[in-house]
């Protein structure tokens, strides 16, 4: 039993001791011959005859050696090693080819690894929770509308938790978690922190256990319980230096003492799943009885019981929801809390699926172009090696052996390219993972993992085989005799060979065309998005989070804010200043707005997004006042129920009339008076059209406060001049810095920008590769036709004619490629049509632009070989044989 294993082991070892074993055998064979000669001499032969006989008896020495190698080693591996050695030798000989090939491969493979890592993290890998495939997201109002529309009130959460049988556990968090921000004191400088309120079983449902301490107790969710908090891992590391004795420490949140009871694991990144691009520092228990009075604010997540399908859970919820409504006739339940269930994973990344697949497709095209390009380069190289191959065929190398040699060479190339590609991808991926401001879920957890490396191995093999195989077929298909004769005459390449190269170039141009059209359409959409009238002016506006003294019952809100705003307005360089509790594209909150003297049909939208603002906010944000006036300090301090509405709200609720001076309802117990109409602001996203928006004075209870300043001064200058004033007015003012309002816009467009940038990079890469392909083929054909061109010039062709004929050939190739590519692009653009914004899939500008660009690049690629053709000296060309 042992012997075969032992033998295999020795055979394997022999591979690495080849030279040593060969020497040993040679010594042994020479001893053998000596012994044989000696015996023959003793038998009376002449020395010559003795040697001849000894050699004859021994048989072929080379044969014996081969025999010996075959028996002691692994013949297949030996051949492979031989091929590899040969490949390395030939690749080393042709440095420029090798460098270009490896560069192209590294870029192509690297891009593929990066995109695979992104796709893997966002789509393929499960969410970072225990058995995350059982987690379900509840969407109210069929997932349509603002956050208030899709969230639930506490009562409906409790009903689902109590009655739904499909779930092991139902939990929730307060989705307006931007509103649980605090000024933290008692640990260094005052600090602005973000907390999220969660239900009692939140961490248990997600399967998260704190690494230090414990989660919240049921009693800690009762109003009046001693406040406690859980720290996120990054905050623990950054602010408390990972102090293991953190438990039981206290900090102050807005002057309330909070005890730290635990630290959450590093793997639990709440924001990257539920609110990409933002950060969370603490978790605090939701006081359910308090949250109950806030209306629709909680987001529900549940864990399915094992064996229960999503469809079953959905069916159950469809039956339950009307029953809940019937059981709660009170006005708090002004809607039916229906639920559209989806897997949490689909909720988090579902919207991105199409974008990601498009991205994946784009890098797939890049890889294809890389293959085509390399096939082409290899073909050109093979043409110059055709004598070598013909010779080998003539000497008896089989077709399979030649193909194997070429495929080995291409595999060696693609393997080296892959090594560089992986390095490239590691760099790019770690760069992306640190782009915290890109609003893509899970982005900070992307990495080149085992799956990505397996994927790399797969594409490396595929690429190596694909681009080595086609040239292999060409080489081995030829007639060696023809080639040897052909090469002897130094004439041009075989007809089939040339046609194959042209086909490859046409393919390349067509693929590049598809990529360019796709990226052109996405780029145009992106520009259109940037062109959207925001309704406010982000340039020259900066914002800082502030703290102020609201007084024990909120009675000082108005006066404190007035003091702050007037002090800031007095600072030189400040053109306008105002405070709002929520900024556009940041957070939202929905109340209602309606015209009491108008009849409303069923299902008519009466929601409105609310901003609670001081006078001057509209000005400082650059929100245009169209009619009426801004809120005044007098309204604010006298608690006048006044409201400023946006244009859409005016049109919707007061069609055909001016709403100024009219009564409005929906946001207060008593009617409020409309005092102004302002431009529509894109509050949730640039790509959706704005609905009703209202601005109310600060006595309505702002959630947090952001000071917006309009000034030509840069944010850091504003920080230096304004923050000391704020601290002087209120010592608890945290050490915050001004940031441009533009960052809100950037954050909002970041996912689209991310995709556009990647696709544009790939398209550029594709264009460069296509240009390289055209250049290669044309340049090569000029070299091959040196004689022909020489003859033509000797017969009177001018350089102009020669140049034109080369360029014409270039143009012909490019135009065929463009024609094929345009048709393919037309089909491909339909696939991405849902990703476009205000851009038609067959947008003529993009198509014409791309065609123009490709023709230009093709002419450029053909220009240099054409120039070289005109410099051919007929005499030299004809002499050179």
């Amino acid at each position: 039993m042992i012997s075969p294993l032992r033998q295999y082991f020795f055979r394997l070892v022999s591979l690495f001791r080849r030279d040593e074993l060969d020497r040993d055998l040679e010594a042994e064979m020479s001893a053998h011959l000596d012994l044989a000669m000696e015996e023959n001499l003793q038998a009376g032969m002449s020395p010559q005859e003795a040697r001849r006989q000894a050699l004859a008896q021994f048989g072929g020495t080379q044969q014996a050696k081969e025999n010996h190698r075959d028996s002691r080693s692994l013949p297949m591996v030996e051949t492979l090693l031989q091929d590899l050695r040969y490949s390395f030798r030939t690749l080393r000989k042709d440095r420029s080819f090798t460098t270009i090939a490896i560069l192209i491969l590294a870029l192509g493979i690297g891009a593929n690894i990066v995109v695979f890592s992104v796709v893997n993290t966002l789509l393929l890998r499960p969410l970072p929770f225990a058995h995350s495939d059982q987690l379900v997201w509840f969407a109210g109002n069929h997932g349509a509308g603002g956050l208030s529309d899709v969230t639930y009130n506490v009562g409906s959460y409790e009903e689902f938790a109590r009655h739904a049988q499909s779930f092991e556990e139902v939990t929730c968090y307060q989705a307006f978690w931007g509103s649980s921000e605090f000024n933290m004191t008692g640990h260094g400088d005052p600090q602005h922190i973000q907390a999220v309120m969660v239900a009692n079983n939140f961490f248990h449902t997600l399967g998260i256990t704190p690494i230090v301490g414990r989660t919240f107790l049921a009693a800690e969710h009762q109003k009046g319980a001693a406040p406690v908090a859980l720290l996120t891992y990054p905050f623990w590391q950054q602010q408390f230096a990972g102090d293991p004795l953190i438990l039981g420490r206290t900090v102050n949140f807005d002057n309330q003492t909070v005890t730290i009871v635990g630290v959450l694991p590093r793997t639990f990144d709440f924001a990257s799943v539920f609110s990409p691009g933002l950060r969370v520092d603490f978790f605090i228990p939701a006081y359910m009885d308090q949250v109950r009075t806030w209306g629709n604010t909680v987001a529900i997540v549940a864990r399915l019981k094992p064996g229960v399908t999503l469809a079953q859970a959905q069916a159950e919820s469809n039956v339950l929801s009307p029953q809940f409504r019937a059981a709660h006739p009170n006005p708090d339940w002004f809607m039916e809390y229906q639920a559209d269930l989806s897997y949490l994973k689909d909720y988090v990344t579902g919207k991105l699926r199409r974008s990601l697949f498009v991205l994946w497709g784009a890098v797939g095209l890049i890889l294809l172009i890389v293959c085509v390009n390399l096939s082409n380069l290899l073909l050109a190289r093979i043409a110059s090696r055709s004598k070598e191959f013909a010779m080998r065929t003539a000497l008896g190398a089989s077709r399979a052996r030649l193909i194997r040699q070429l495929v080995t060479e291409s595999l060696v190339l693609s393997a080296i390219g892959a090594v560089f590609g992986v390095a490239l991808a590691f760099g790019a991926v770690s760069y992306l993972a640190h782009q915290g401001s890109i609003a893509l879920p899970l982005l900070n957890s992307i990495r080149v993992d085992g799956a990505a490396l397996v994927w790399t191995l797969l594409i490396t093999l595929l690429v190596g085989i694909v681009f080595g195989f086609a040239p292999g077929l060409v080489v081995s298909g030829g007639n060696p005799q023809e080639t040897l004769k052909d090469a002897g005459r130094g004439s041009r390449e075989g007809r089939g060979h040339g046609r194959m190269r042209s086909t490859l170039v046409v393919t390349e141009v067509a693929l590049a065309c598809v990529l360019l059209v796709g990226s052109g359409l996405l780029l145009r959409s992106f520009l259109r998005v940037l062109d959207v009238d925001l309704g406010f002016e982000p340039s020259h506006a900066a914002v800082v989070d502030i703290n102020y003294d609201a007084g024990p019952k909120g009675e000082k809100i108005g006066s404190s804010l007035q003091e702050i705003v007037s002090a800031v307005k007095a600072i030189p360089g400040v053109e306008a200043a105002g405070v709002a509790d929520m900024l556009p594209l940041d957070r939202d909150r929905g109340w209602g707005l309606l015209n009491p003297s108008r009849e409303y049909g069923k299902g008519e939208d009466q929601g409105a997004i609310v901003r609670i603002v001081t006078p001057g906010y509209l000005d400082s944000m650059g929100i245009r006042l169209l009619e009426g006036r801004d809120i005044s300090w007098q309204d604010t301090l006298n608690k006048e129920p006044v409201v400023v509405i946006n244009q859409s709200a005016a049109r919707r609720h007061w069609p055909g009339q001016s709403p100024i001076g009219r009564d409005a309802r929906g946001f207060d117990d008593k009617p409020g008076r409309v005092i102004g109409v302002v431009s529509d602001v894109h509050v949730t996203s640039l790509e959706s059209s704005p609905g009703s928006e209202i601005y109310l004075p600060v006595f309505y209870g702002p959630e947090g406060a952001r000071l917006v300043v309009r000034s030509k001064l840069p944010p850091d200058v504003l920080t230096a001049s304004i923050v000391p004033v704020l601290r002087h007015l209120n010592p608890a003012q945290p050490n915050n810095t001004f940031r441009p309002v533009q960052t809100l816009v950037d954050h909002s467009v970041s996912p689209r920008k991310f995709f556009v940038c990647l696709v544009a990079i790939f398209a550029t890469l594709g264009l460069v590769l296509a240009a390289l392909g055209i250049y290669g083929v044309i340049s090569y054909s000029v070299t091959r036709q040196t004689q022909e061109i020489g003859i033509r010039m000797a017969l009177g062709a001018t350089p102009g004619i020669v140049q034109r004929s080369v360029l014409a050939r270039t143009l012909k190739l490019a135009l065929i490629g463009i024609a094929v590519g345009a048709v393919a692009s037309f089909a491909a653009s339909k696939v991405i049509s849902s990703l476009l914004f205000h851009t038609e899939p067959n947008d003529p500008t993009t198509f014409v632009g791309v065609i123009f660009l490709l023709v230009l690049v093709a002419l450029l690629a053909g220009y240099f070989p054409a120039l070289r053709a005109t410099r051919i000296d007929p005499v030299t060309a004809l002499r050179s044989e």
Partner: protein
Amino acid sequence: MSDSKLDLLQGTLDLMVLQTLATIGPLHGYGIARRIEQVSGNEVLLNQGTIYASLVRLQQRGWISAEWGTSDNNRKAKFYSITKRGRKQLTEDAAYWQRLSIVMSRVLSLPESEEGAKL
């Protein structure tokens, strides 16, 4: 000439080498080749060079061991000797060959039947 010599079946050379080493003791490659030729009465077709493939195979299996040494007439040569495991293997293989040869000779000595001849 070669028509009349016996072509070696796969594995038979290995067995011959083992048997040779078992009876004569440590011996170099040339010695083994010569010995086999002599014993077989020059019946075996043997390119002496092929003996080395067999030797390396047996060595890797652990049935023989090798060591450089000096021959009777003071020449450096590699000497092979059979190991304990080699002897065991030899016993097994020899028994197998004997059984096979008995069976073969029985089969081959069957009288030809009428039908058989027709076939």
